[in-house]
């Protein structure tokens, strides 16, 4: 068997022949800038970075890597929060950030065609003059790439009403691990055959590398109304959410922040949320003006009935932005009140929210660490932020322990280990807590069909890679990741 080092040398030699020098990064200091994504505690320096300019470049790299048995990982903007784009120490990192052309805005067919490196928000910006927008809106939408959104099946605050990336992608051009360029779907709905596109969205870059994306554009709503409501505590705010949902109202977004998250947001961006609030709700309604006005009045009634002490309607776009600013900057804001923190991403059935919040509170007290809660209350997606100080001996371990116990609480209530951040490297071991071995084995049948040699973003998602039974002995080991994981858990 070829040693990894020899295979890498062979890959580098071939790519030097085939790609322009500026498309290859080999300098060790420069390589280091790619060592992590948005989850910074997993760091692996890649052996080689390719800055792809086209699907042909991607095809070339994937083919050469396939021939030499060298693993490769795709990376967009590097904003992912689960380590999905962490490089392979003996592999190639394929960076798609330079492929950032908006190829087409097609209002007549309500579609946009873009390259994977395009920033999420730029799609909506380009479509805005025609009166359209792209619905999925992760908090990082100014920088995160569409390719990364496809890999992670990204959500966002407005997925309560509009769904996730998977509901808005209608076509993918993808380089499969055997080096083929495939067009799946396009501007028309329901292409015949297996929904490989549906399987690819959210597969965290393990089934292929997307080089072009066709997305649905939605007509911009006639009216958007945003409401900020202050409550004494999360229980009262939770009651308001329950009654809004129960009567059949479907706001575009319902977001909640608890006292600690509010404190952090105030410290960071001075969002001027209601003073003394133990919890705030942000409720956004959109649609035809007459429907929105009627629904807004109902939402306000439910908030009052649940004990809201202050209701603030955004009267101007600037006020709306102000309200959202506090929420969207909440993760980073926590840095103002704590030297270190872990962002968790668990989901529970919405009706279990109050009891899960109480349990998180109890776990937080037991561990002696503060937990700030920011979450998508409408769909039960929690983002508890565990605050700690890494300079204090043992506190990191304690924080990690608390974070993982919160996740177990979510699972005990029939929830999920991740609502939008993905499994990546971060939650590989949690997969075995959510799914049985047969479930994981079945998922990996799909992987074996796409990538029998396990070269495409290996060691992500699954706790134990499945041997695919073909060409035995060509599975590449991944000691770096395994060691990394062993350290973390």
């Amino acid at each position: 068997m070829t040693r990894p080092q020899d295979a890498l040398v062979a890959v580098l030699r071939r790519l030097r022949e085939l790609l322009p020098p500026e498309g290859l990064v080999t300098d060790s200091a420069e390589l280091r800038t790619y060592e992590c994504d948005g989850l910074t505690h997993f760091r692996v320096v890649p052996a080689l970075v390719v800055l792809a300019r086209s699907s042909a470049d991607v095809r070339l790299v994937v083919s050469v890597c396939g021939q030499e048995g060298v693993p490769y990982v795709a990376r967009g903007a590097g904003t992912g929060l689960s380590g999905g784009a962490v490089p392979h120490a003996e592999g190639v990192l394929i960076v798609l950030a330079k492929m950032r052309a908006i190829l087409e805005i097609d209002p007549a067919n309500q579609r946009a065609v873009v390259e994977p490196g395009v920033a999420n928000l730029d799609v909506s910006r380009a479509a805005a003059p025609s009166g359209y927008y792209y619905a999925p809106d992760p908090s990082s939408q100014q920088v995160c790439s569409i390719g990364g959104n496809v890999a992670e099946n990204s959500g966002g605050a407005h997925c309560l009403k509009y769904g996730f990336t998977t509901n808005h992608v209608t076509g993918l051009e993808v380089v499969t691990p055997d080096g083929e360029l495939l067009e799946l779907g396009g501007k028309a709905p329901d292409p015949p055959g297996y929904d490989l596109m549906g399987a690819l969205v959210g597969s965290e870059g393990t089934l292929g590398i997307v080089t072009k994306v066709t997305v649905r554009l939605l007509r911009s709503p006639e009216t958007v109304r945003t409401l900020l409501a202050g409550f004494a505590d999360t229980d009262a705010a939770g009651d308001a959410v329950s009654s809004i949902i129960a009567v059949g109202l479907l706001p575009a977004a319902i977001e909640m922040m608890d006292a600690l998250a509010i404190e952090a947001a105030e410290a960071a961006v001075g969002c001027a949320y209601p003073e003394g609030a133990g919890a705030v709700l942000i409720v956004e309604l959109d649609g035809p003006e007459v429907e929105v006005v009627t629904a807004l009045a109902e939402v306000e009634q439910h908030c009052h009935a649940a004990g809201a002490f202050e209701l603030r309607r955004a009267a101007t776009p600037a006020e709306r932005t102000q309200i959202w600013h506090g929420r969207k900057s909440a993760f980073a804001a926590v840095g103002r009140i704590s030297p270190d923190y872990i962002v968790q991403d668990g989901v529970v059935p919405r009706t279990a929210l109050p009891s899960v919040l109480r349990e998180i509170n109890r776990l937080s007290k037991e561990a002696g660490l503060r937990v700030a809660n920011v979450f998508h209350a409408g769909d039960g997606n929690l983002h508890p932020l565990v605050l700690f100080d890494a300079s204090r001996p043992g506190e990191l371990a304690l924080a990690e322990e608390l974070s993982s116990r919160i996740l177990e609480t979510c699972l005990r209530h029939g929830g999920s280990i991740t609502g939008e951040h993905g499994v990546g490297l971060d939650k590989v071991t949690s997969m075995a807590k959510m799914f049985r071995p047969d479930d994981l084995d079945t998922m990996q049948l799909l992987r074996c069909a796409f990538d029998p040699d396990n070269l495409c973003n290996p060691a992500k998602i699954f706790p134990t890679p499945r041997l695919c039974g073909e060409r035995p002995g060509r599975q590449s080991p991944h000691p770096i990741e395994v060691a990394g994981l062993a350290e973390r858990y």
Partner: protein
Amino acid sequence: MKLLESLASVCASGGARSGEAADEVDGLLPEVVAAPVTTEEVAAVVGLCAATKTTMLARGSGTKLDWGGSPESLGVVIDLSGLNGVVEHEPGDFVVSLRAGTTLAALDRELERAGQRLPIDEVVPNSSVGGVIATGLSGPSRYLHGAVRDLLIGLTVVRADGVVARSGSKVVKNVAGYDLAKLFTGSYGTLAIVTEAIFRLRPRPRAERYLSATFADEAELSAALSGILASQLAFAAVELARAEGGGPMTLGVLLEGHPDALERRMAGAAALLGKCAVSDTVPKEWGQLPGPVTLKIAVPLGFVPSLLGELSALETTLAIPLRIRGSAGVGILYVGLEPSTDQASFAELLQVLRSSVGSTGGSVVVLRAPASIKAGVDSWGPVAGLELMRRVKERFDPDRRLSPGRFVGGI
């Protein structure tokens, strides 16, 4: 022990029997019909079939057995109609989990009590949920609420080797692991047998208004349709129908919302449609397929008017009456024909349509037809990614036991 006896022994309450004429699928008579009523029993049935190298086909209500390609062989029909009922429905979570044999109608009766619904139309009366998943059959409501694939959030399946596997979960927002529910939706039972499904739900609308208008030609219709698609009135469905032999086209739109607000939105819709009829309910034939032979044509939205023009022209030149219905707002038209349609003309119609629709990036599929009509044509047409699909099939069902021949490329 004979297969029939072994299967009867694992289907404790539903039993097993010899296949009869009514069980035939495209002229193939199954040796046995087994009726498991739990996931475990389905697993036992599939395990027995695998051990005896027997081919299988899952059947819910049996309403779509003439869909897709004809199976190559048929050993056992797995009758899932007894595997029915809701497993869990917590109204506050807007999620339901249910067994595959449950009919859409029975589910709707149950959800109505909670003021909720699964917004998947009963396109074929008496359809089971499993059959709707297997064929990915969505109706008019997909315009606003999404297709089957968008509403399905979790699945329990039995693999071809009898192993039970789950994916997804009962929370709407979940990205843990591969989304196998997408892969299995519309796979015509060729990858695994669905035994339980979890769907996200929607509130029942407080009020509905249906408006329809007729148009004499494609240009008039095209203008109204673009107006509707570009409006901000948030329609729930945008449907189109045309009787055979040319004649006027009907555009029907549905609005859902608050009773007070609907009046204002209706005025806006009427301004776009011109002279129109208004009703509190959708018409009886809402979403139903236009004929015993049905083609499904999918095109990018903007091509719907020109497709209508082409269909009218073909109707004349080939002398085949075509009944048209579809979700104009989504880009899907169904074309209905009679089973007596001349085979050669049918093949020509298909070929001409595939060439022109193909150039828009769309597809033409023979959704349902008697075996005699299907025999002379490729039901599915060209399929992008077919080789990869074959590799997926090879991994999930290496011995081709699950509905062999029914899917694209003879999968």
